[in-house]
């Protein structure tokens, strides 16, 4: 294992200290690993909080700022934060109008966030939860969750955080913000392909073996193996197959406009991500969809995994309007 770390144990704390140095406009608590806006809680605004294991940067801390999250809480690598720390994030974000927590659908995250919500309710903080579950690799062809653990939460998290953050910034109430999050999640699907496995620092070796001429189809964002391994082929063919699975599960909508994210999983050159976007645009056009906005880059990573995830969000007028409002975070910034 080759990593720029001091030790696996100190990795998250060291990185958060660096993040604090890079972003003096964020408040970072070294004890709870909560990253919050310096002006949180923002008076009169519904709080928007997310969190999860480390290793997905810039998710979630990179999305703290005006127009997105009020606070994010980071666990150990690929491990949900604990309820007491999530509670610290909820408290940091609550101005009295309640807090929406955005949770990726994994057993650990949903359990810990549910416990934290109970603790917060005990303190008189109103909490609503949106569980993000967009990964088409873990759904069935008709779009319903295929196994009892349900679809994993992946790329759609960025979309839900952006739209909920935008709506909260406009002064919407907790129910409206939660409903918007659920709506965006329901209209979004993702699929991911890995070229290499990633290495969890505390483990010290790659999560699975993949020969040079094979890819892993349908991976998640925790370095676990995917649905199957396949031969490596030209990007056009891989993207076509990936989007076939994704579009099969994308719920129908009245609007043909979409927001598309081509996301590097941590060790993929931007050059290749643009190749993927080019192929994806062609496939989506053929499917009768319009690409209204794109994100190309590293937004939801899996440590040093090479590979790509594709996320397609059916976006109506409301969603597009919120998407375009100003946002000012370390990893997503426009209009300000």
């Amino acid at each position, binding site marked *: 294992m080759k990593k720029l770390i001091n030790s696996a144990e100190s990795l998250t704390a060291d990185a958060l200290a660096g993040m604090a140095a890079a972003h003096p406009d964020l408040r970072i608590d070294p004890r709870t690993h909560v990253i919050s806006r310096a002006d949180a809680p923002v008076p009169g605004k519904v709080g928007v909080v997310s969190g999860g*294991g480390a290793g997905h940067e810039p998710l979630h801390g990179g999305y703290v700022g005006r127009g997105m999250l009020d606070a994010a809480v980071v*666990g*150990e*690598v*690929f*491990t*949900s*934060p*604990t*309820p*007491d*720390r999530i509670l610290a994030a909820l408290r940091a974000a609550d101005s009295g109008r309640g807090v929406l927590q955005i949770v990726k659908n*994994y*057993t*650990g995250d949903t*359990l*810990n966030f549910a*416990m934290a919500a109970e603790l917060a309710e005990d303190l008189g903080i109103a909490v609503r939860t949106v569980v993000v579950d967009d990964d088409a*690799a*873990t759904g069935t062809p008709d779009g319903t969750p295929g*196994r*009892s*653990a349900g679809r*994993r939460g992946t790329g759609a998290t960025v979309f839900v955080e952006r739209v909920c953050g935008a709506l909260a910034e406009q002064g919407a109430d907790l129910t409206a913000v939660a409903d918007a999050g659920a709506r965006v999640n329901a209209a979004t699907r993702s699929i991911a392909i890995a070229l290499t496995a990633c290495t*969890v620092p*505390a*483990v010290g070796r790659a*999560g*699975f073996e993949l020969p040079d001429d094979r890819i892993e189809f349908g991976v*998640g964002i*925790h*370095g*676990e*193996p995917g*649905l199957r391994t396949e031969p490596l082929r030209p990007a056009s063919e891989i993207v076509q197959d990936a989007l076939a699975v994704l579009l099969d599960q994308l719920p129908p909508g009245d609007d043909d406009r979409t927001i598309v994210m081509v996301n590097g999983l941590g060790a993929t050159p931007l050059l290749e991500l643009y190749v993927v976007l080019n192929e994806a645009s062609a496939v989506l056009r053929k499917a009768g969809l319009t690409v209204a906005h794109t994100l190309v880059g590293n937004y939801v990573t899996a440590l040093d995994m090479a590979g790509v995830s594709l996320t397609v969000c059916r976006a109506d007028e409301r969603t597009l309007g919120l998407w375009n409002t100003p946002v000012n975070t370390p990893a997503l910034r426009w209009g300000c």
Partner: protein
Amino acid sequence: MDSELTRAWLLNAALLIEREKDRLTQLDLAIGDGDHGVNMQRGFSAVAAGLAEPPPAGTTAGQLLVTAGTTLVSTVGGASGPLFGGAFRALGKTLDTAAEPDDTRLLADGLNAARDSIQRMGAAQPGDKTMYDVYGPAAEAFGHALCDGAGPRAAARAAAEAADEGVRATEPMQARRGRASYLGLRSVGHQDPGAASAALIFQALATAMEAQ
């Protein structure tokens, strides 16, 4: 179940998990993300640190177990923290509140409460390839042994054996809960890491009983 035995149990469990950390990680690498051993070790070493000194006089077994459970919830992370921590908390609360006068019978009730806590939080069913496939048979074996006239030691040994059998039984199962479930059929042929940790906890209980 007194506080001295409880302390011995938890310290035994911490030792076993420390010793088996790499094997747990190995199991998790096959069907999860490979951090189970590290997370459990972090949690149980925090529990052990809290028990370095014998507890103050008057501390009940139930209080020790609830504290250990709370420590696990706030140190393990992932799903294992709430699930294992919640199980210890449920056990501890039962020991402290139930009206059962027979101490061993009370422990049986407590183990059932731990099992139910896992089932409720994880929404797991038997055969889902989870820690419930160990807690279920182990709690049952403990209760059956008592009904057959066994003492606490023999009952704890029977529970540990049922737990080991439960881990082995997870190998041919297809995971339907937790991260391993995303692998579908590829999860078959591997023992469940959470179940393996659960078996160590029952192993530690039997050893603590026998050393008394």
